[in-house]
């Protein structure tokens, strides 16, 4: 039985090593033989030169400072029509009115005022346990 198990696992290892090795050799040959067409040719057809991607911030990819995390561009969500001056992140900010600021401060005060009470309750519980 032990011999059978060893043979079986050895076969699976041989297979996977063979697949990986053959894959590397064939893919390397194909990559080396690549003539600059195929993928790139097709990809070029999708670029701005083909007329796509226009209507964005002129000439410059939306959400993209090349080199700075391209690929993470939340500024082109579905249904979005960007263009110069289109409200984007932060641009649509409405400045807070004095009333809003006052309300914010009042809320903070409320939290602050409640804090000692919370502490007292906690002390009380600890006291009970003792």
């Amino acid at each position, binding site marked *: 039985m032990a011999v059978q198990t060893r043979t079986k*696992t050895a076969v*699976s*290892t*041989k297979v*996977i*090593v063979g*697949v*990986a*090795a053959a*894959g*590397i050799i*064939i*893919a*390397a040959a*194909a*990559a*080396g033989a*690549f003539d*600059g067409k*195929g*993928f*790139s040719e097709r*990809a070029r057809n*999708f*670029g*701005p030169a083909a007329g*796509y*991607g226009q*209507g*964005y*911030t*002129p*000439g*410059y990819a*939306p*959400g*993209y*400072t*090349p*080199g*700075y*995390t*391209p*690929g*993470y*561009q*939340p*500024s*082109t969500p*579905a249904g979005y029509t960007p*263009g*110069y001056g289109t*409200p*984007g*992140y*932060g641009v649509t*900010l409405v400045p*807070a009115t004095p009333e809003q*600021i006052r309300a*914010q401060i009042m809320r903070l005060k409320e939290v602050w005022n409640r804090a000692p009470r919370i502490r007292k309750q906690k002390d009380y519980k600890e006291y009970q346990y003792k």
Partner: protein
Amino acid sequence: MQDDNNKVTNVRRSVVLWGSAFLFVANIWIASAVIGVVAGTAWAVSILNAAASQDRFGLSTLERYLFASLFLGSLIGLLLSIGYLLTSLSSFLIVTVVLLLTLASSRSRSFVHMRAISIDRSYLVNTLSLLVVLGDLMILTLAVGTRTTEALSSPWLMFGTPVFLLFGFISLGLLVIADQRRDDLSLVLTVIHFFTAISISAIVFEVGFGFDPFVHRAAETELVSLGSIEPKQLLYTGQYVLVSVIQKLTALPLKVVDIWLVPVGASVLVPLSAYMGLLRGFKLKKREARVWMHTIFLLPLMPLTFTVPFNITFVLFFAVVFLLLLKLNKIQWGILYLVSLFAILTHPLLGVPLLLLISMVHGWNRKLIAIAGIVAIPLMFVVHNLGAGVDGVAFINPFVRVGLFLNLFIDPYQHGYFDIPQVWEAIYLYRTWIVWLLLGFAISSSLLAAAKQPFRLSKNQVCPYVLIAASLMIAVFLLSTMFVFKDIIWYEQAEFSLRLIQAISLLVLPFVAYFGAMRSRALSRSMRYLIFIVVAVVMTFAFYFSYPRLDPKSLTPGVSVSAVDVEIVHMIDQIADGDEYIVLSSQMMSAAALQEFGFRDYIESDMQEYLWYALPTGGVLYQEFLSYLNMDADRDVIDQIGEGIGVLKVYTVIHHYTPDNSYLIEEAKVTADSWYESANKSVVVFEYSY
């Protein structure tokens, strides 16, 4: 007899240490790249050996070398940064730091003896190992062969689909080798593969990759020649002094040092830290640690592909996330705190979270640190915004703008120009869902493991990571909904939030590796190989998404700086004939100008200074350039600038890749006083005189 031998060896080592140190510092004046590299390598190895020999805690050799590297790198960076901030980056400061470290190292008499590496004799696996190395060399050679000075949107335009197959099969081979070999050779192969994965853009883009690296290089060039940059600021100091000092000591071109600092540093530090953390922290078997350290390949590795200050902190954060799994002694804790201080001096956006993460795992008050994690980054930006003269924070309910936060997690690559082929939608599913998938795997596995004692991780191992991730995510929520950044163009406003999310994602990787190893323990060999195939496929996706892409989903990646941009900035300087001028162009041409001339000219007007090339990160000129393009090359826009600022000449530049370029060029020929073309006719320059 033994003592005599030791004495002789120590004298020999002292000679190498001091000799290389003197040659190294002398190279500031000799300026020979050969002497710099040879003496620098000898000196670095000597002090690394000396630092790694300090072992009072019975650590493994690899662990000692890892911490010694982190210690020396951070210490050198910190000493130089502090020295620079107090005085300037003078030769005296550099010589002092180098000689002080040499003196400290020379006191160490015990050196580490590297054990001989035993090589596995399995013929099949050895052959596969050789093929893996050759495969990686093939990818690197292909990248060198396609190196270009043209304006390029994506490095993948220079490769065919087979390169991804090749990467995938190498990854599979590597996983099998890590699983099968009884020695640690696969660690070397993993380091080489990691280097291959993150160095494509550094090789392909001959003029330089990205935009921001050009700005930082211009600053570093200024620092090398002047010894200081005004105004002095803490931000970025870590990178600037490190790159500048390496350049001064080795005499290598600054561009080479700058471009390769992050890819080379990351490809050594990250894989070895991951291995060490999994092996000694999670107590995985060697074989398991070697296999599952490949989780570091599962996320897109963009921040490791080029050098900017944030990316340096990203490398450190990545390594520390794994090193914190170890049972650290007090010296190691000290080294990690030192690393975080250096990171803060380089870029506090991730430097501060790094410090908080270390403090959290170290066992400081967790509630306090979680609260600090929530408020620290927003608070930094309040201070930054106030300093920049804009409102620190939008005083409105952040939940009203919750959409801005949720937008950070959606697939931004949607468009209505044509039906996107399903295969591309499927490929992009990886990008949208990979972090959630990994998170789901880690959570479900930990829940399952709760029932099985041997799989269970202690609360102390898990809680700090969960708490810091949660508090940083709340910080991202506040950051994305409450802030406006003055110097950042509108489509980049979410940039800081996105960068933080990338870093937070790293926190899940150790647990994915751990549970991956645990759950595959009971599986048959064939099943393990099936899992390896899936992991290799995901690694290949991550490889693709580590660089900008031009495909049916991603239509508008930016274009790189080209040789023509460099040609044009010199041409404009000549035709301006000494007159004061302003150039409105794509940001990539501005990057070329910064590379060629540095921050040479500022135009003063209305108590404001304008860099003579438009940049989206500074001033209003770039917005005016966009107006000019949107208004069909309208002269009025240029007149307002020319007359308002009071320059004699304003130049506008239209590239062949600018949308509607043919139409805009014809319009601009009418409104401009004269126009010029680049040699290959891909760029047209328009002159407006006053």
